[in-house]
């Protein structure tokens, strides 16, 4: 024991050191893996508080349900609506949009309503927020097979269109989202053909259920849900309800629409919710209501058939998907 050279490490020390190194290696790699996982799987973002909207009119419940202005389904929680978004201008991951859209500047903002109209006009957002606001509790069915129930606040699109007086030549309405890659980072990628555009037939646009939403849960819209103003068409798949609108154009012919450009055989111009017409790659017969575990049956026209089926009288819904 005493004649041990100074340079030879004591066996116990050596073993301890090796154990220590191994523990460090294990802890280090596990930490690295954890960080990598967290990076790829972000947790839900902190909720964004909007401004309270004043004087939101609520129709008497019974009448509202009868007219399709409200449903009795349980509301999807605010946190879910604001952390599960398809908004490709910000991110293609549904959980990533809330982060990416944080701090999105929506002032100044104007919506130009133009085209085949007698009185084209650029509306400032504050002017639009002064339209008589109503609450609408709508189902939202995403083409991907999930759904929510959202208490929107907004006004019928018809109220806006009446102000500009569409001419008799106007048969369709085209919508456009803001194009600004500095504010909408994914517009630098080629995942879609920017800017996002959508369209409706004029009678669909004038339908009382079609609204321009400026809020939900009685607050102004959070960025990830289409601030400051978006379209909501409850009987069509969610992607028809274009977000962060800057331009509305009355036109004579069916306008191009983004997802139809992207995959013409998968996303049609009409895109009415229809359990009997499958997406080429998946069935549309059922959906998962966010917050529920099983799947529920998808309803024709998302359950708004009584109000909107007449718009498509005599039309082949398989051909005009």
């Amino acid at each position, binding site marked *: 024991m005493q004649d041990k050279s100074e340079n030879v490490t004591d066996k116990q020390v050596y073993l301890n050191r090796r154990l220590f190194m191994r523990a460090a290696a294990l802890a280090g790699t596990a930490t690295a893996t954890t960080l990598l996982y967290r990076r790829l799987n972000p947790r839900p973002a902190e909720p964004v508080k909007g401004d309270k909207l004043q004087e939101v009119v609520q129709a008497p419940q019974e009448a509202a349900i009868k007219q399709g202005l409200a449903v009795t389904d349980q509301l999807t929680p605010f946190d879910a609506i604001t952390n599960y978004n398809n908004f490709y201008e910000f991110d293609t991951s549904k*959980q990533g949009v809330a982060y990416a859209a944080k701090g999105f500047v929506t002032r100044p903002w104007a919506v130009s309503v133009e085209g085949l109209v007698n009185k084209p006009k650029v509306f400032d957002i504050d002017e639009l927020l002064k339209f008589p606001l109503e609450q609408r509790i709508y189902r939202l069915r995403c083409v991907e097979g*999930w759904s929510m129930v959202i208490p929107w606040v907004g006004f019928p699109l018809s109220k806006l269109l009446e102000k500009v007086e569409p001419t008799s030549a106007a048969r369709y309405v085209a919508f456009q989202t803001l194009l600004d890659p500095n504010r909408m980072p994914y517009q630098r990628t080629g995942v879609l053909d920017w800017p996002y555009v959508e369209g409706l037939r004029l009678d669909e646009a004038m339908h009382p259920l079609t609204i321009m939403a400026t809020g939900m849960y009685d607050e102004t819209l959070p960025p990830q849900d289409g601030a400051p103003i978006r379209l909501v068409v409850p009987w069509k798949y969610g992607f028809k309800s274009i977000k962060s609108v800057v331009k509305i154009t009355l036109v004579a012919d069916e306008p191009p629409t983004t997802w139809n450009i992207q*995959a013409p055989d998968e996303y049609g111009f009409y895109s009415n919710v229809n359990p009997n017409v499958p997406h080429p*790659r998946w069935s549309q017969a059922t959906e*998962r209501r966010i917050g529920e575990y*099983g799947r529920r049956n998808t309803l024709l026209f998302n359950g708004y058939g009584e109000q909107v089926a007449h718009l498509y009288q005599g039309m082949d819904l398989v051909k005009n998907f």
Partner: protein
Amino acid sequence: MTNVRFFKTVVFVNALVPLALLVLDLYRKQVGPNPLDVVTKTTGMLTLIFLSLTVAVTPLRKIFGLNSLVKVRRMLGLFAFFYGSLHLLTYISFDRAFNLLSVGPDVVKRPFILAGMTSFLLMLPLAITSTNKMVKRLGGKSWARLHRLVYLAAIAGVVHFWMLVKSDTRLPLTFGFIVLFLLGYRLLVKYMPAPQPDTNSSLFRRD
């Protein structure tokens, strides 16, 4: 040998870290509004990652001479199968509500599920024959031939992923390129005449 055991431990622990975090997040309800979506995506992604890692072992060994990697290849493959099983279980339990009879029609209706199921069924015999006993029973050569199915499993897995995304195909394509590169590398080594003079080069060393 103890170094190999430690190396295996490191890989084993790290391979389980994502599962631990996923379970922790589920327990603390920090998985967002659609937990099933997160479980499905995470387990699916992990399957593809481990499939890619498994097929990366041979090229990495040959290019960088990292021969010890082969010691963990079986474990990597089994983790691919493990996460693939969890992925399938999520689908069967929550998407199909344990109604196994509805799986068949669903596979036909949704082609991307067919691709995923193919990938899983290709991994199944590989997992079953992964033990030392089975290697002996099958004989090294035919065992190795059978286990080349892992490439088909990886390709079917990538196709499954690629088919289900709507437009942002960057991630599935990345996996696709990785798998094709790793497969292409093997074909290249197999069919390219070995360079004669530099026998010490580890780049094309055959073993």
